[in-house]
């Protein structure tokens, strides 16, 4: 029996034999597409150096990813675009005046120490871009030199000496005063700050795209932003509750963090309840740092802290299985 009379080989594998067209690479590509509006706005407000910093950072991340995998004789994951996303996001949370060597060091830290040493894509427990940023605060002056917005003030591609420095809205609010910028400027991003975080509008366009493409769900960003909004509304430091709330939401890195950083698959919970608690936790810690911390911005550290709780949150958030006994269902 079983004399094969056919001259081709059949492949056998476990079902299913069909697969959706979504891959890790298409997801990362969608995230990059969603970041394009913010990148355009950063060029509008900070000049071409913004683009240059982003490109350098992305290229460095891909290089480190490729180099590490090569050196360790592991499969090459450099082309799945996840390193590009890390590079772009790290650039987005730096001031436009950041020297190239600093951001390349940040990329090295993010990719090699945070991501690869823990096993590469999918294994890191904190967001690599945010951890890279935290590492880059070893140079606090470089990381908190903010330039005035406007194409004419733009920092040079090579030298940043001409740039006119200015304070960010959150720095003012950290002192307990309402910032001088109008809410509209905060919304479209016509304010000082990190490269990619300024324009809430551009980030929301990216958010809509990610939701449309079903790359992320709205649970974490909505829980996060709503928590910050509610807390800011309840405990305003200025005279105008609404303006204070809007400034807390649109100023600083909240939008970028909530939409693109807190939703990082690897470092956020997979369960629904876990995601909501994660978002709320991020919001509470952000407000605590902004109000009581020594530093005017709280988003990065809030997300990094919550990243560490993900395993616990997923334990709490486990869904009730289909057909579970009703008693068990009621208990959970």
């Amino acid at each position, binding site marked *: 029996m079983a004399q094969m009379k056919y001259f081709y080989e*059949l492949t056998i594998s476990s079902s299913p*034999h*069909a697969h959706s067209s*979504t891959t890790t690479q298409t997801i990362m590509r969608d995230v990059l597409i969603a970041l394009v509006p913010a990148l355009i706005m950063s060029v509008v407000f900070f000049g071409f150096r913004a683009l240059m910093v982003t490109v350098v950072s992305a290229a460095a991340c891909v290089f480190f990813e490729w180099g590490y995998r090569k050196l360790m004789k592991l499969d090459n994951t450099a082309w799945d675009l996840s390193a590009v996303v890390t590079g772009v996001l790290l650039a987005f949370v730096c001031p436009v005046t950041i020297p190239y060597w600093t951001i390349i060091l940040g990329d090295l830290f993010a990719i090699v120490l945070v991501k690869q040493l823990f096993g590469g894509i999918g294994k890191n427990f904190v967001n690599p871009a945010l951890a890279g940023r935290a590492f880059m605060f070893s140079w606090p002056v470089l990381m908190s030199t903010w330039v005035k917005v406007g194409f004419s003030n733009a920092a040079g591609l090579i030298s940043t000496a001409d740039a006119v420095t200015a304070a960010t809205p959150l720095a003012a609010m950290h002192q307990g005063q309402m910032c001088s910028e109008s809410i509209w400027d905060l919304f479209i991003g016509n304010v000082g700050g990190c490269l990619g975080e300024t324009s809430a509008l551009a980030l929301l366009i990216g958010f809509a795209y990610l939701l449309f493409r079903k790359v992320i769900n709205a649970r974490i960003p909505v829980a996060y932003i709503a928590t910050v909004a509610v807390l800011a509304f309840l405990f305003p430091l200025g005279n105008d509750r609404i303006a204070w709330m809007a400034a807390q939401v649109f100023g600083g890195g909240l939008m970028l963090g909530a939409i693109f950083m807190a939703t990082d698959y690897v470092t956020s919970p997979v369960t629904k309840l876990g995601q909501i608690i994660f978002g709320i936790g991020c919001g509470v810690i952000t407000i605590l740092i902004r109000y009581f911390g020594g530093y005017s911005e709280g988003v990065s550290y809030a997300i990094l802290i919550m990243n560490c709780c993900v395993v616990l949150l997923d334990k709490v958030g486990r*869904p009730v299985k289909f057909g579970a006994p009703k008693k068990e269902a009621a208990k959970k």
Partner: protein
Amino acid sequence: MAFSFFGGVHPKENKHYAENQKVQEFPAPDLLVIPMSQHIGAPCLPLVKKGDRVTVGQKIGDNQGLCVPVHASVSGTVKAVEARPHTNGMTCMSVVIQNDHLDELCPDIQPRTQEEVDKLTAEELIAIVREGGIVGMGGATFPTYFKLSSGLGKVDTVIVNAGECEPYITADDRLCQEMAPELVSGLKIIMKIFGLKAAHIAIEDNKPAAVKALKFAIDPADGIVVDVLPAKYPQGAEKQMIYAVTGREVPSGGLPAAVGCAVFNAATCKAIHDAVYLGMPLIKRIVTVSGDICMEAKNLMVPVGTPFEALMEAVGTSENPYKVISGGPMMGAAQYDLAVTTNKGVNAITILGRKNRFAVDNPHCIRCGKCMDACPMHLIPVMMYNAERNSDIDEMKSLNMLDCIECGCCAYTCPAGIPLVQSFRTGKQKLRDAMPKK
């Protein structure tokens, strides 16, 4: 009705290959291999030996316990009784019949008139269903007589499953379009057995012609409702279908009868009609032979025991097949030997070309959670996968791995291309191995 179950995916339907092909009678080949195990339960013991002459519909295998008999699908001579490859990937004791093309009918096969059928009791009808060798024809091949007898007095809702949510397959669609009266007649027998006045036929909304044909075949006095459900995979999975039609959740580890439901595949209903009215046991069924590299996909009425190669020759392929699947692409079993033959549960042969390759050498989970959103059993495939890789028995248990129905939604949707279902099959085996021996 019309609840929507949680999760699921919507794979490319690919029904257009075969949905407009009328069911054609496939001429029985010269040699048929009839497996003795075509159902869940104890395999049949062969009742014939080498050299015996058999006739169409003659019982050639039976056994005690949870078992239904197997019948010869052609007349001819028994050439061998030996182990042959089975679609489940293993070998199975089979009766090999040399077809004499005389199609001589077994004398036991006697049609019944309506009056005779009306006089039959539920127990007698169940006995006919058993003797007819009828099993669930959607692919699970659970013995139908047992579903009927164990549900007596418990079942208040009968659902005919014409969902057919697997891509490519159109066998039930064509059956509903062309044989709706027989289907409804079979359903009425089931209703009579359970003593019910009402029943449901559940079908997906991507089969409008079948819905029309079914509604046409139903008399308003029959009490049969056609429930048109949204096309979504796995709409045809038993538990999901019961939920979609009645809103009841079959308890974990339990049978549908626990919530008063019994689900029968559309083809099973037709087979019950044939067994009761024509006296004809289940010896042929509609098989969709389709796939993206088929020259001409077909729906064929195929005698049980027909080799896959003969059916593949009937449709022709434009390139060498990459995978030949018994069943549909979501849950079907890929075959390594085309000498395997059709059985009562093979509703389709799906022939896929090379472009369906998606295996990844080193898949890296990115914890996107898409598998969770797709799981119709509300499980957490991402954690189950890690638990299985670590052989963490306690964790696998607490993640309810045994509740997995292997529908394939998670692996279908996984962007990293992780073979999740394969992992869970392995994990279930690890769990069973770890259980204390009774």
